[in-house]
């Protein structure tokens, strides 16, 4: 990664990678989460409860188990892995993109839950009124439901970002610990502690803590301003 060398004897690459991975993972989670939340909140279909359970599963499964499943699903021998390799000419696992997948899986359940609650909290009559005023379902969602659920969805997004930033287990399983390539903050802290580099560990821990506090503060502000 050009331009990100060491400043003050600390390698800042993991922080930069973590922020980038978390940002991308949040963006994907938000899209996926809203789509899933919309489907769960508005449609009646077979397997709805199963889908709901499936989105909750990552919250209850140990990260290593999730990582294992993802390896099976995306590994070089799997269908998806082969497809990726065929299209982009390189395997997905043990790349920074795999870290994005890991963080997304870590963040998405929370977003779905929060987004579903937020979408369902919007007054149905307002949506019905919009329908009688000629709005399509898509327009009702974009112009009425989403803007009215905006604050809760934003709070959930910020929280999801924090979750994505903090993923350790799944990332280690499918992206590995390759310094300068897939080593995110969480993994770098573990690495620093393991190799006896206490000072580096402390600095990284403080940085992550600062980000976490900023996230909590933002969330509270978003919820208080309702």
């Amino acid at each position, binding site marked *: 990664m050009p331009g990100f060398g060491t400043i003050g004897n600390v390698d800042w690459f993991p922080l930069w990678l973590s922020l980038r991975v978390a940002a991308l993972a949040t963006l994907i989670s938000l899209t996926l989460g809203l789509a899933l939340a919309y489907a769960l909140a508005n449609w009646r279909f077979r397997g709805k409860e199963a889908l709901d359970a499936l989105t909750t599963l990552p919250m209850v499964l140990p990260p290593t188990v999730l990582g294992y499943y993802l390896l099976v699903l995306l590994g070089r021998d799997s269908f998806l892995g082969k497809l990726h390799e065929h299209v982009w000419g390189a395997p997905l696992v043990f790349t920074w993109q795999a870290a994005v997948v890991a963080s997304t899986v870590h963040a998405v359940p929370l977003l779905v839950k929060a987004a579903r609650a937020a979408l369902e909290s919007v*007054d149905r*009559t*307002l949506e*019905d*009124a*919009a*329908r*009688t*005023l*000629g*709005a*399509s379902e898509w*327009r009702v969602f974009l*112009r*009425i439901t989403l*803007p*009215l659920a905006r604050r809760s969805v934003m709070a959930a997004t910020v929280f999801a970002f924090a979750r994505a930033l903090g993923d350790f287990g799944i990332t280690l399983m499918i992206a590995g610990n390759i310094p300068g390539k897939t080593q995110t903050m969480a993994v770098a802290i573990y690495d620093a502690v393991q190799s006896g580099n206490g000072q580096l560990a402390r600095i990284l821990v403080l940085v992550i803590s600062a980000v976490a506090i900023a996230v909590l503060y933002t969330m509270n502000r978003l919820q208080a301003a309702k």
Partner: protein
Amino acid sequence: MKTALEASLAKQFSADGFSLDVTLRCEPGVTVLFGASGAGKTLTLNLLAGLTAPDRGRVLLGDELLFDAGSGVHVPPRSRGIGYVFQSETLFPHMTVAENMIFPLAKVPTLERRRRVNHLLEVFRISDLAGRLPRALSGGERQRVTLARALAADPRLLLLDEPARGLDYELRHDLYAVLRQVREQYPIPIVVVTHDLAEAFLLAGRMYIYRLGRVEQEGSPDAVYAAPRTAQVAQLLGFTNVFEGVVEELDPAAGTSRLRCQGLLLTAGYLPGRLKGDKVGFCIPAAAVSLEGSSGNRVKGELTHQILSPSIARLFFRLENTTLDLECEVPRSRTADLSVGRSYALQVPASAIHVFPAA
């Protein structure tokens, strides 16, 4: 072309056993759906708007079929061209008045859209509010904006659910003036749900009396008030003098009949189609009962209590030798020399007694 609404709607709810089964025909002008809450009035509007699908029935607006259970036609709400003012507040809270008004005009070209919104803002005297958010409006202003928004896309049918709810006397009458204006300018059917009798009389060309998911009676307000078809309709219309009795005598030559009700024997108009001994119900408008005169039936009763309003007084009498209470409505000024606990003679004209089948 005049657009009329013809609808037959049936819907069953297994959860609470409520069922709706009504047939409506609404010409341009105001049709009022009148009845107690829970009678299915709002449900009817939702079925017409397509927000809920009927189990059976058909909705025809002008020459367009909006719903037909038989052939599976169900036009979605957005394509029905129906303006709907809901019972609860439905202005979009995150949009200004102008933005709310533009919302239904998404497919209209920009210039035309502006022209229409400006026109409506003027007609409804809300131009000053265009830039405000709904929460900065008063209740009366909100209702005007909601009505203007419902009319923005030139609907072919307007549905109003308790439009005057929550407004005080003055604002209520402002709104009625606006509604009369709408009625003049838009030659479309307007269906108004209300449980306010005065409102129904003020607005309706025709009214449907709802009870327990059925239409109990329909007609012009005057016709319905003059001849309630059942005791329940009479009570819904505010009659307190609703009694049951037996036909004791029929005299077609004199055009009279005699009704026995507990210890009373009342003379009423002739009752074609009834036989001696038939059980019937009847009602007497409180305003027809008087303390003066000598025509009609003379009954005696003790004044038990009175309810006073600025211009009229409602007097309640316990009739002699019965357990019946009779209400008599008189001008307020007439009450000066009356005292509770004393007995008075009351006149009930034969023509004021309206008979319907016993419950």
